[in-house]
Each structure stands twice: as C-alpha cells, then as structure tokens.
C-alpha cells in the first residue's frame, strides 16, 4: 500500500476554496428552495384549484426526475431555446427548484399536522386566515418541520456535488482537478468525504441546538 496524504495537504487551501463554493451554492439554493417550498406548500393547501394543481405538478415532476437531469436541462438544454444561464445561476437555480419540491411536501405535511382545532380556535376569536397562519399555525408547524428540514438541508449540501457536472468548481470538482495532476484518487476522495462530513456536522450541531431550544419553549 502506498498512500501519501502530504501531497494533498499542500493542496488544502484549494480544497477549502472548493468548500466555500459548496457552501455558497448550498446556502443560496436552500434560501431560494425555502421560498419555493413555502410558496409551494401554501399553494398546495389553498382552496384555489389552479394553485393546488400547479404545486402538485411541480412536486410531481421534480420528485419524479433525477436532479442531474434537471440541472442539465437548465444548463445545457435551455441555451437551445435562447436562454443562457451562467453555470453558477443554473446550479443554484436547479438545486433550489429541486430542494424546493421536497420542502413543499415537508411544509405541507407540517401545516397539516397541526391540530385542526387550532385553526378553528384562531378563527373563532376573529382572526383572518393570514393572521391564523402566521401567528398560530406557522409557529407550531415550524417546530414539526425542523427535523425533516434538517435532513433536506443535508441532502442539498451533498447534492451540490452534482453542480460540478455543470462546470461549477465546488469541492468535488476541485478534488477531481487535483486528481488529474496528482493521480491520488483515494487520498483526494477521502479528504473530500471528510470535508463534507465536517460541513454537515457543523450544520447538524447548529440544528440540534435550535431544535432543543424550540422544544423547551
């Protein structure tokens, strides 16, 4: 066996740059994905059949197709229709659309898991639908949604490695480039795995604390 991590350690600054890009993609796609998810969930439970079916088709199509195909359509497919997105835009947008569909389902389930009596009680004291959603249902649904959302956030961070295929030089692609010059596949891939693990662990610790704090409330 002939493992040599010293070569890779010298490349650590480049890998950390990759981590930064990964975090950037993940952050913006999750931010956007949350917006899509909240909007999607509200459409899904609305009484307007048009909104309900739009949200339904969104979730259906995205959940039923691979995230890689979705990204490729955005980045390699759309230029044929005259829409050219930068790799970063396509990557973030694609991941956001993808994670947004799952978040739609998470939030919808969270809202529907709140006891029906809560909405009735809120309405019975004279609140309108919006006030009831924001002040009564929302906070309770948030608490229910946090564990599955944490899962989804972790999934998205890992899925961001697929953005390497649309030429974004994030952590995974940075690693591949190092392999081209060093031929140290095992070392590089294990280092990449460790870096993903660290990023996710930090996030999990933060989420865990948040969850505990909310449970005390």
């Amino acid at each position, binding site marked *: 066996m002939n493992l040599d991590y010293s070569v890779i350690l010298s490349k650590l600054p480049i890998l950390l740059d990759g981590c930064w890009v990964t975090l950037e993609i993940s952050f913006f796609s999750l931010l956007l994905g949350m917006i899509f998810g909240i909007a999607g969930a509200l459409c899904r439970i609305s009484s307007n059949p048009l909104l309900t079916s739009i949200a339904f088709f969104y979730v259906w199509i995205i959940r039923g197709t691979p995230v890689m195909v979705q990204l490729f359509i955005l980045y390699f497919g759309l230029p044929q229709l005259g829409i050219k997105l930068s790799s970063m835009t396509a990557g973030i947008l694609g991941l956001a659309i993808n994670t947004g569909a799952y978040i739609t389902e998470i939030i919808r389930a969270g809202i529907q898991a709140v006891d029906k*009596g809560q909405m*009735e009680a809120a*309405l*019975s*004291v*004279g609140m309108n639908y919006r006030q009831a959603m924001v*002040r*009564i249902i929302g906070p309770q649904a948030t608490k229910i949604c946090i564990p599955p959302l944490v899962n989804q956030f972790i999934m998205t961070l890992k899925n961001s490695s697929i953005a390497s295929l649309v030429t974004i030089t994030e952590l995974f692609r940075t690693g591949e480039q190092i392999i081209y010059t060093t031929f140290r596949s095992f070392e590089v891939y294990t280092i990449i795995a460790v870096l993903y693990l660290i990023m996710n662990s930090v996030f999990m610790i933060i989420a865990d604390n948040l969850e505990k704090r909310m449970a005390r409330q």
Partner: protein
Amino acid sequence: MSYIVEMQNVYKSFGAVDVLKDFNLNLQEGEKVVIIGPSGSGKSTVLRCINHLEPIQSGKLYFSGQQIDEKSDLCQLRAQIGMVFQRFNLFPHKTALENVIEAPLVVKGMTRAAAEQNALELLQKVGLSDKTGSYPRELSGGQQQRVAIARALAMNPKIMLFDEPTSALDPELVGEVLLTMKALAEDGMTMVVVTHEMGFAREVSDRVIFMDQGVIVEEGSPTEIFEYPQQERTKSFLKRIRH
C-alpha cells in the same frame, strides 16, 4: 322583538348526511339555552353554524338583526361570538396570559398594556391568577378549559357558545368549569351550551332543546323537558342518560 341570533330554515349536510334539516332557532339577549341530544344529532353543528365555522347550505342566519352569509365580514362576526371547544384548543406555544391577549392584540389592535390588564382580570375571574405564565401543557384539563373561557371572554363577546365544554375532562375537574360557566350566566351573558351535564342544564338554563337527527324534537323549560317530556324520543334519551 329582535333576537341576537336567528336561524331560519337552516339546512346543512356533510356529503350525503343531513346534519341539520329545516332548522329554526331564535335566541334572545341574555338567554341561556342548553342543547341536549344523542351524538350525531347536530348539536355541535348548530353552534358552528352560528359563528360560521361551518357554512350553511340553505336557509337564513342573522346575528344582531344582520344577515350573515359568505360575503359577510366573518372576522367581525366571530369577534363578537365567543366559542369554547370540547378539546380546549388553547394555543400550545403561548402561555395562559398570551392565549388570552392574543386576539385583543391582533384582532382588536389593543395596546399590550390594556390587553394584559384585561386578561389578568379575566384570569382572576376564572380563578387562575397564579397560572398566567404557565403553558397549556402545564395545566390540567379543567384549568385549560378555564383559560379557554377567559380567552373567549377577552374579546368581550355578545354571546358565548360552549361545545361540550366538560366532555373531555376527568370527572373531578368538571365542577370547576361548570362553576365558571355558572358565574358567567349570573353575569347575564347570553349562552348556548351543548352538554350532557343535566344538573347544569336544570340549574342555569332558561330553555332546553332536545335534538335528534338534525331537528328539534322538543324544547321548553328545564322542568318541562326533564320532568314532563312529551315526545317518546325525548323520554327514551333521558332514560338512557340517567342510567
């Protein structure tokens, strides 16, 4: 003679099931009405139609002389009608005090100071001055229901609807809630109470309504209904619940 609530020929169904059929009810201000009847007779639905938690399919509904339909300002209607639920439905993420001030703050736009002062008085009235900072899960069922009553009263309603307010309580906790309701009745509140508590009905109500299968079978004073029921269905119902 104007009524606070008028229901005229109200019809309501859930799918193929007729819940209320050609239902009529007039309530005078200050009146205390108890509705009794077997489960599934439509008692709760009557209450839920009054504050429009359930839309009616046909018939007319008036509140304080004004007709209520889909286009009415339902928030304004409901702000004037207090409702107490079988399962309390307190807001679990808010303390007792926060539960009571929520609607005055959000719906009425009261200042926090005024809402809190009012809430503290109400919580004292229902005997819970020492529980203002407690969350619902830290309270017994009876205490939760009394907070729920205070929450409804905080909007200063013209009428209070009670939907089986003691049915979800342990037997030893029923008394404290009934006592609170009795005090409210003595203050002159207009009340419609769906309940199985015949003692309460006897003592507090001006009128008892016996419902079955979506219609009023018989109504009258507590003495008329409990001592001298005329209808067979009323007699057999009363016999069943007394055993």
